[in-house]
């Protein structure tokens, strides 16, 4: 379980392996903020290998999205399974994020 960070073509890709919940949300936030401070502006967070997200995990995505936008950047989300999509729809966060079916689609045009 953890976060795999890679960088390709000017985009920082973060793959969430396991859960994104109250117990590890700060780790994700810290990793992304380090890249933001280093000047990275384009981000994709991929959930292909993610079991579930709790409200703290959703909250950290909202927080990161705000910080990235404030720096003139963009955050996209990809590969949400049916359960995760349900959580985004219930909370209406699907209206806040650009969400794509695959990380490849998220990377297109970013």
């Amino acid at each position: 379980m953890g976060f795999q960070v890679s960088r390709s073509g000017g985009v920082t890709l973060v793959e969430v392996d396991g859960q994104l919940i109250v117990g590890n949300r700060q780790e994700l936030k810290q990793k992304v903020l380090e890249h933001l401070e280093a000047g990275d502006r384009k981000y994709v967070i991929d959930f292909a290998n993610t079991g579930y997200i709790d409200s703290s995990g959703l909250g950290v995505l909202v927080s990161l999205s705000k910080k990235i936008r404030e720096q003139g950047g963009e955050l996209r989300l990809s590969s949400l399974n049916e359960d995760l999509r349900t959580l985004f729809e219930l909370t209406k966060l699907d209206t806040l994020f650009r969400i794509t079916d695959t990380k490849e689609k998220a990377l297109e045009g970013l």
Partner: protein
Amino acid sequence: MEHDLVLELPSDVRSIEHAVEYVVRRCQTFEDHAHRLRLNFRVGLTEALSNAMLYGNDHDPSKRVRVEVTLTAGAIRARITDQGDGFDPCSIPDPTCPENLMKSGGRGVFLMRQLLDEVLYNEQGNEVTLVLRLNRALPGLEGGARA
């Protein structure tokens, strides 16, 4: 009431994932409801434990969170009690309102109410009972989540 499962947890959010997985595994006999266990119950229980540790017990590692789970043919009931002063669950604003959408917090109680069939607080507000009914299909999204 006799409970099928009782856990006492420290107020350490790192314990939540293991505790939730343990409880969900113990409920796996309800395999016809695997999807609702995986999503609705698991997320609801995670939220309740998180609220109890972070807000109820205010991160105090000396305070405990008690989880009592009762399994019947018709429902799973989980009662989560913290050692804090309690809160008013009606005071939580709707996180889906446009003015709240960009806030990083305030979705936990909302998600519990959306995903579980019943969410009942005691008068003090330091104890919540989550009920997942197993004898009927709920309308709405697959798995019983109500939009």
